C-alpha cells in the first residue's frame, strides 16, 4: 500500500511541484482527488449502509463555506472581512485546521439527516436528503455578510499566503493527503466490526437490531464520518476554485456524486476510486459540448441503470478480481490469510 501511495504521489504531486503540468492539468488532478474523497465517503452511506442520500453536496458546501470563511477572515485581505488578521507564516498551520473545522461543521450538519434516518428509509430518506440541499442553499443565500447568492471569494489570497512561505502546490498536496486519509479510514471502518454492523443495516435492518447491532449508533457514526470527509473535500474544492456560491453545491453536484457512486458499484471502494477518476475525466472531455454535457450525462446514466445497474465493480473489490493484488491493497488480516475481509 505505501508503494502505491508513493507511485501516485510521484505521478501527480511531484510534477505539479516542478511545474511540468499546466495549471489546467493540475486543476483536473485536484478535482479527481476531491471527487475520489467524495465518492468514497458517499459510498459509505449509499453503498455499504444501503441508505439513499442525495444531499451530499450540501455537506460539501457546508465544509467549503466554513473553511473558506475562517481562512479568508484570518489570512487574506478581502472585501468581506477586511485585512488579514494573522501573519502569513501561520497559514501553513491554519489551513489544515480550517479544513478540519469545515469537516466538523459538515458532520454536525449531517445530524439533520442522521436523526430522521432512524425512523425513515428509502424514498422518504431520499426526500429528506434532497430537502437538505435546498435548506443549505436557502440558508447561505440569506446570509448577506458572506455574499449570499452572489458568492464568496478570497481563497486565492489564502493560497497565495501559503505559497509566500514555501512555494509548493499546497492545495494539491492537501487534496492528496485527504484523499489517502479518506480511503484509509473508510476501508478500515468497513473491515472492522463496526463495518460489519453497517453492512448488516443494509442487508436487513430489523435482523441487525435483533442481533445486538446498535443501528442508531452505526447510522450516526456513518453519517458523521462520511459528511465530515465531504466537508473536508468541500474546503479543498473551495480553495481550488477560489470562488464559490450556493449554487456550486446544489442538486446537480449531488447528482454527479450519486452517478460516481453507482457507476463504481455500491459497496466497492476500488470501484468508487475508478469511477471517480473516469467520471471526472469524462466530464472534462465533454467540455466542448457545452451545456449539452448535462443532457448527455443523465441519458448515459439511465442507460447504465438499464444495462448494468450494479455498476462497474458491483460490490467486489479490485483485489477480488486480481487476488495477487491483495498483497498490496489488503488489510493486514487479508495479507496473512489471503481471504477477503468481508463478503
Amino acid at each position: 500500500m505505501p508503494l502505491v501511495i508513493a507511485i501516485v504521489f510521484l505521478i501527480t504531486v511531484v510534477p505539479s511541484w516542478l511545474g511540468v503540468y499546466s495549471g489546467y492539468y493540475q486543476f483536473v488532478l485536484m478535482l479527481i482527488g476531491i471527487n475520489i474523497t467524495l465518492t468514497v465517503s458517499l459510498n459509505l452511506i449509499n453503498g455499504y449502509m444501503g441508505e439513499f442520500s442525495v444531499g451530499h453536496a450540501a455537506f460539501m458546501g457546508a465544509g467549503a463555506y466554513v473553511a473558506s470563511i475562517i481562512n479568508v477572515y484570518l489570512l487574506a485581505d478581502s472585501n468581506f472581512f477586511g485585512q488579514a488578521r494573522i501573519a502569513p507564516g501561520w497559514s501553513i498551520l491554519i489551513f489544515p485546521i480550517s479544513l478540519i473545522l469545515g469537516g466538523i461543521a459538515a458532520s454536525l450538519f449531517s445530524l439533520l439527516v442522521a436523526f430522521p434516518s432512524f425512523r425513515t428509509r428509502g424514498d422518504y430518506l431520499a426526500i429528506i436528503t434532497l430537502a437538505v440541499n435546498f435548506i443549505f442553499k436557502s440558508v447561505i443565500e440569506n446570509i448577506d455578510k458572506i455574499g449570499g447568492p452572489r458568492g464568496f471569494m478570497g481563497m486565492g489570497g489564502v493560497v497565495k499566503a501559503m505559497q509566500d512561505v514555501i512555494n509548493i502546490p499546497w492545495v494539491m498536496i492537501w487534496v492528496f493527503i485527504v484523499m489517502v486519509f479518506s480511503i484509509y479510514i473508510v476501508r478500515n471502518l468497513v473491515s472492522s466490526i463496526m463495518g460489519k454492523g453497517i453492512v448488516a443495516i443494509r442487508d436487513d435492518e430489523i435482523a441487525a437490531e435483533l442481533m445486538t447491532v446498535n443501528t442508531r449508533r452505526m447510522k450516526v457514526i456513518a453519517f458523521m464520518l462520511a459528511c465530515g470527509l465531504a466537508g473536508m473535500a468541500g474546503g479543498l474544492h473551495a480553495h481550488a476554485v477560489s470562488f464559490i456560491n450556493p449554487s456550486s453545491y446544489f442538486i446537480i453536484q449531488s447528482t454527479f456524486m450519486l452517478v460516481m457512486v453507482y457507476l463504481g458499484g455500491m459497496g466497492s471502494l476500488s470501484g468508487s476510486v475508478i469511477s471517480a477518476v473516469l467520471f471526472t475525466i469524462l466530464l472534462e472531455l465533454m467540455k466542448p459540448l457545452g451545456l449539452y454535457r448535462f443532457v448527455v450525462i443523465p441519458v448515459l446514466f439511465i442507460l447504465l441503470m438499464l444495462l448494468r445497474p450494479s455498476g462497474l465493480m458491483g460490490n467486489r473489490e479490485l483485489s477480488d478480481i486480481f487476488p495477487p493484488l491483495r498483497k498490496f491493497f489488503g488489510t493486514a488480516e487479508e495479507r496473512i490469510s489471503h481471504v477477503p475481509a468481508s463478503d
Partner: protein
Amino acid sequence: MDPSSLHVVVNTNKNKGSKPVDPSLLLQHFINAMQWGSFLALIAVGYTMVYGVLLLINFAHGDIFMVGAYVGYFIGTFLLNGFDVQLPWDLPSWVVIPVTIVLTMFFTAIVGVALERIAYRPMRMRGAHRLYLVITALMAGIFLEYANLATLGARDRQFPTLFDKTVYNFAGISITNVKILVILLSVVFMAILWFIVQRTKWGMAMRAISYDRLVVPLMGISVDNIIVVTFIIGSSMAALAGIMYGTAFPILSFDMGLFVGWQAFIAAVVGGIGSIRGAMAGGYILGFTQIMVAAFLPSTYRDLIAFSVLLLILVVKPTGLFGVARRTKV
C-alpha cells in the same frame, strides 16, 4: 374645532408582533394563498397519482410542469401571431384560451407518456429494484431541465398575455381576474379529477392498483394501460398549472420546475403521498403556510420555511395527513 390644533397621530409602533392586523390585508393574503395553493395542489396531484400506481416518486414531474408552461408559451404565442407567422385568421381571446389549454395538455401528456415509456417501463419490465427507478426519475428530471436550457438558451421567456388583466378593487383589496380564473379553473379541474377517480372504471382501476397491484392483472385489467392513463392525467394537470402559472407570473425560466415542482412535492408529502385528497389538501395547506409566513418574514425565507415544514412532517408523521402507512412484511 380649529384645524390648526389638530394633531396627526403617527403610529410608531416598532414591535411588529403587536400591530393590529388589518382585515382587508388578511383577505388579500387569503386570495393570494388560494391562488398559490391551487398551483401546488394541481402539481401535487400528479406526484401522488404516480406514487399510488407505481410506488415511485416521479421526481421528473416538476419538470413536466415546466414543459407544460413552455409548451403553453409556444402555442399561445403562435396562436397570437407572436412568431412573425401571419395566421389566415385572427382569433379572439375567448377562442385562444381554451385551444391553448387543450393543446398544451395534449402535448404535455405526450411528454409524460413518452417519459414513462422510455425511462420507467423498461426498468419495470426488467424487475429492477425500486432504488434504480428513483435514480432514473431524478436523471430524467435533470435531462428535461438541461435539455431546455441547452436548446432554448438561458434567456427567460415571456408568457403571452392570453387575455387582458382587469383589476377589481373592493373592500380595500385588489384582485385581478387572473387570480379568480386560476382558483376557479383549479377547483373545476380538481372536481373533474375527483369524478374520474371515484366514479369511472379507470379511476377504480387506479385505486385498485394502489391497494394491491399483484391482484389487478388477475382481474383482467391491464396495469400498463392504467399507468399510461395515470401519467396522462397527471401531466395534463401539471400542464394546466403551467399555463396558469405563466399567466399569473409571466416570466418562465428553465428551473421553474425545480422551484415550484419541489414545493408541490412537499405539499403532496404533507397531505400524504398516495392520497389524492391529501395532495389537494396539502397543496392549499402549504400554500397558506408559505403566504402567511411570507407576510411576516422576508420572502427569501419562503423556501427555507417550506423545506423545514417538510423535514418536520417527515420526522413527526411521515405518512402525512391523509396517508396510510404501508405495511411491509418482515
